[in-house]
C-alpha cells in the first residue's frame, strides 16, 4: 500500500509509511495526511492498524466542513479548478501511471481495457467546471434565506462497492466541493481507482485533496469500522442489499444507503432506429452491464409479438457489433456459469411454449432474449439483454409501478405525451427521488447534479431538510 504525504515527491511503500504517519501523528497530535491510496502492485489491508491508531488518525482528519461558511468561495473556486483538471486528465487517461492503473483495474474487475477506459471516462465527462459551478450555485440559491438549513457534517464515511470502479466518485466530488472531510473505504476487490484519482487531484491542489482520505480494510476488521463509526460520521454506502442491511444495524439513521438498483429502457418497436439500438447497446456494454446505471431490461412497446422478435434480431446484430468495439471482459468461470444457467432457464421455458426468442454467440460475450414477461428482476448483467414485450405504454406503467423502489434510471425513446405521463406518474411515487430519465446512450453519464434527486443526498449536500 502506498502513502502520499503533502511533500512527498513520490509514492512510498505503504506499511512503513503508514507507521511513520501514525507515529508522526502521535508525536505531533496533528498531521496532514492527504490520503493513503491503495497500492498498484500488492494491496495490503489495514488489519495491522489498531482501532486506537485509526481513531487518533480520524480525530485529526475530522474537522468542520466548509460548506457555505467562511472561506467557502475560495475553497469552491480551488476545488472546481482542481477537479476539472483532474477530470480532464482521467477523461483522456493522460496522467502518470495511467497504464499501470488500467492494468490493475483490468486484473481486479476482469473488464477489458477499452471498456474500462470508456466507462471510467464517462464518470469524468460530467465533472466540468461549468457543471460543478452550476451545482454549487443552485445550492447557494436554495439555501439563501431557507429556515430549514442545517450544518454540514464534519465527517463523511463513504463505503464504496467493488463491482463498478469509481461508482462513489460523484459522491466524493460533491463532498469535496463542499469541503466535507470524507473517508472512502474502498472495496478490497477493487481498491485502486479512488486512491489513484486522489493522487491526480493532489497533483492539482494538495489542500483540496487534504479533506479526502482513501483506505481499505477487510470487512472482518470490525474494530476499524467501529473506530470510524464512533466519530459519528454521515455514512454513505454503496453495495448490495445485504451489505446495506448489515450496515443499517451498525449505523442506524446515520446511514445513507445506495443499495441494489437497476436501470431499464423503454422503446417502441415500430419507431426504434438502428441508431437507437446502438445507443442502447452502448449502455449495455459499459461496465459489462453491471451496476445500477446499466439497463437490465428493454421494455418494447409493440402491437404484435413478431415485431419484438424482429427487433431482437436487429438488437442481436447491433450488440455483436458493439461487442467488437467494446470487447467483453475476461469473466470468471462463476460469471460464465451464471450466464449459461441463465440461458438454460430461457431455453427450458421456450420448450414449454412460452414466447421466447434467444440469440447468442458461441461464447458467453452477449445474449439477447426476447420474451413476453413482466418480471424485471431476473437480472444477470454481463451483457445479457432482455427485450420484454409490452402491449401498450399503459402496460409499461403498470409494470414499472411494481419496481418503484428498485429502478435507478430509465433510458427512453417514447412519445412526448408518454414522457410527460412517465414523469408525472413517477413523480407521484416517493421513490422517484434518485431516478433519472434520459435518452438511450446517456445512462452511463448522467448530469453532474442528478444525485441531488435522491432525498437523503439532497439533504446532505444542500444542508437542508426537504
Amino acid at each position, binding site marked *: 500500500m502506498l502513502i502520499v504525504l503533502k511533500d512527498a515527491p513520490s509514492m512510498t511503500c505503504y506499511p512503513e509509511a503508514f507507521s511513520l504517519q501514525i507515529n508522526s501523528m502521535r508525536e505531533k497530535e496533528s498531521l496532514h495526511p492527504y490520503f493513503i491510496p491503495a497500492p498498484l502492485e500488492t494491496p495490503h489491508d489495514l488489519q495491522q492498524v489498531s482501532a486506537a491508531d485509526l481513531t487518533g488518525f480520524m480525530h485529526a482528519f475530522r474537522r468542520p466542513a466548509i460548506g457555505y461558511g467562511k472561506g467557502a468561495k475560495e475553497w469552491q473556486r480551488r476545488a472546481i479548478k482542481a477537479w476539472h483538471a483532474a477530470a480532464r486528465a482521467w477523461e483522456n487517461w493522460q496522467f502518470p501511471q495511467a497504464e499501470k492503473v488500467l492494468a490493475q483495474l483490468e486484473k481486479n474487475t476482469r473488464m477489458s481495457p477499452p471498456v474500462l477506459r470508456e466507462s471510467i471516462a464517462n464518470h469524468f465527462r460530467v465533472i466540468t467546471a461549468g457543471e460543478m459551478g452550476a451545482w454549487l450555485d443552485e445550492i447557494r440559491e436554495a439555501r439563501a434565506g431557507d429556515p430549514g438549513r442545517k450544518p454540514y457534517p464534519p465527517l463523511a464515511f463513504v463505503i464504496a462497492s467493488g463491482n463498478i470502479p469509481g461508482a462513489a466518485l460523484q459522491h466524493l466530488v460533491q463532498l469535496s466541493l463542499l469541503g466535507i472531510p470524507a473517508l472512502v473505504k474502498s472495496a478490497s476487490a477493487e481498491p485502486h481507482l479512488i486512491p489513484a484519482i486522489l493522487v491526480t487531484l493532489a497533483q492539482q491542489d494538495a489542500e483540496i485533496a487534504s479533506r479526502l482520505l482513501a483506505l481499505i480494510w477487510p470487512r472482518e476488521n470490525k474494530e476499524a469500522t467501529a473506530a470510524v463509526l464512533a466519530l459519528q460520521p454521515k455514512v454513505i454506502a454503496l453495495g448490495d442489499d445485504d451489505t446495506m442491511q448489515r450496515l443499517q444495524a451498525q449505523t442506524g439513521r446515520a446511514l445513507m444507503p445506495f443499495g441494489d438498483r437497476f436501470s431499464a429502457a423503454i422503446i417502441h418497436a415500430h419507431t426504434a432506429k438502428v441508431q437507437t439500438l446502438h445507443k442502447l447497446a452502448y449502455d449495455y456494454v459499459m461496465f459489462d452491464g453491471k451496476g445500477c446505471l446499466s439497463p437490465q431490461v428493454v421494455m418494447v412497446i409493440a402491437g404484435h409479438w413478431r415485431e419484438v422478435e424482429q427487433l431482437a434480431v436487429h438488437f442481436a446484430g447491433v450488440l455483436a457489433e458493439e461487442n467488437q468495439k467494446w470487447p467483453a471482459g475476461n469473466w470468471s468461470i462463476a460469471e*460464465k456459469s451464471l450466464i*449459461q444457467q441463465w440461458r438454460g432457464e430461457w431455453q*427450458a421455458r421456450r420448450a414449454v411454449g412460452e414466447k421466447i426468442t434467444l440469440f447468442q454467440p458461441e461464447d458467453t460475450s452477449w445474449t439477447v432474449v426476447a420474451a413476453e414477461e413482466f418480471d424485471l428482476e431476473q437480472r444477470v448483467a454481463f451483457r445479457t439483454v432482455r427485450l420484454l414485450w409490452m402491449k401498450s405504454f399503459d402496460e409499461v406503467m403498470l409494470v414499472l409501478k411494481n419496481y418503484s423502489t428498485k429502478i435507478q434510471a430509465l433510458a427512453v425513446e417514447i412519445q412526448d405525451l408518454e414522457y410527460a405521463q412517465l414523469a408525472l406518474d413517477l413523480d407521484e411515487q416517493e421513490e422517484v427521488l434518485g431516478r433519472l430519465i434520459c435518452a438511450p446512450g446517456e445512462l452511463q453519464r448522467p448530469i453532474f447534479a442528478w444525485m441531488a434527486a435522491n432525498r437523503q443526498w439532497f439533504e446532505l449536500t444542500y444542508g437542508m431538510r426537504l
Partner: protein
Amino acid sequence: MLNSDSKFSILDHRSSTFDPRPSILDFILTVDLAAFEEERFNHLALQLFRYQLQNNPVYRKFCEQASPPVTNPRKWHEIPAVTTSAFKYVPLACFPPEQAVAVFHTSGTTAQRAGKHYFRALEFYRAAIMRSFRAYALPDREKILMLFLGPTAEHFPHSSLGDMFSTLQRECGTIESTTFFTPEKLLLSDFFETVANAGDEKKPVFILATAFNLLQCMDELQARGQRLPLPTSSRILDTGGYKGRTREVSRAEFQNMLGECFEVPKKFLLNEYSMTELSSQLYESQLPGAPLQGDRPGIKFMPPWMRVLAVDPETLQPLPAGEIGLLRIFDLANVDSVMAIQTEDLGRAWQDRIELAGRASGAELRGCSLLTEAIVHEGESVRKVTPLSSS
C-alpha cells in the same frame, strides 16, 4: 467386440412401447461397481435418451430447439444437457407431474425460486442409493447405529437428502437409529448424550450429516471444551459443502476438525456428493473394501450408471479428462426426468471419478447445507456455508 451402434440400430425402432427402464434397473442392481463398460453405458444412455425424447415433452422441445437440434446422438456425451436452473421453471418429467409419487425441491434463499424434481417411482432412486452406499460407506456390516444430523423424510418430505437418509435408516440402521434435526432445531445435547451412551457400550455409530450441522456440532463441543470420541469402526459421512460465506473452511481443515473432535481415523471420514436434480450419488471413501480407491484425498467415485464431463464454461464444449470445468452429469437413474444435467459445480472429471473444485462462486447458494443453515440460523450464532454439493 460388440458394435454398440449396430446393436442400437436394431433396438431403436422408436416404438412407442419401448421402455429401457427395466434394463436400467437391472444394470443398477447388478453391475460390478468397479467396472465401467463404455459400450453398455452408451447403449443404455442412448436408449434412455430416446425414451425421454418420446415421453418428456418439455425435453423433446428442448432438444428440437437446440442449435443445432439434437434428436439422434450417437454417443452419450452428445446428449443435450439441461441446466439445473431449468428445474426451477419447467416440469421435466416423462409423465404427468401431478402423478408424481415424490417431488424433491432444491433449497435456496427465500428470494430464489426452488427447482423441482418429479419422481414417478422411487425404485431407481433408492436402488442407486443403496448400491453405492453399501459399497462405499458400509462395505463391512449389514446394520449400524445411525445418527442423523441432517434432514429425514419425516420432517423434510421435499428434501431428496431427507429421503436418502430415511432410506438408509430403514435399510441399514439399527432399531436405535435416530435423527437429531427437525425443522425447528438441531438437538445437539440429545445427540451428545446418545453418542456418549454408544461409547459406553462400545457400539460403533455412523453419523450422517450436512457439513453445516457438523460445523455447528463441533462449535458446540469446542464451546463446552469437550471432545466426543466415537467407538472403533464408527464413521462420519458429510454432505452439502462447508465453504463459508463468512468464514471458509477447507476440506482438509474440516476433516482435521472432525478427526480431533470425534477421534475418528481419516479413512472413516466419508463425503457424499449429489444434488436434487440427480438420483445417484458419488462418494469419497477410503474404507477397505470400497470398489474403487483413490490415490489422493478429494476424489469422489461415481457408480457405473453415471458419467461426468467437465465442460468449458465459455462454450459448454467437453474438455479433455482431468481439465477443470463445469461438471455435466449423465445419470441413468434419472429415468423419468432428464438424464443429462448441466451443473454449476466446478471440477475435474475422469471415467469413474471426479474431483470437485468448488461451486462457481457467483452461483446461487443452494443445497442441503443451506437448508440446515436456515434452520440453525434461528436463535443461534451462525457460521454460514456455501455448499459444494447438495442432495
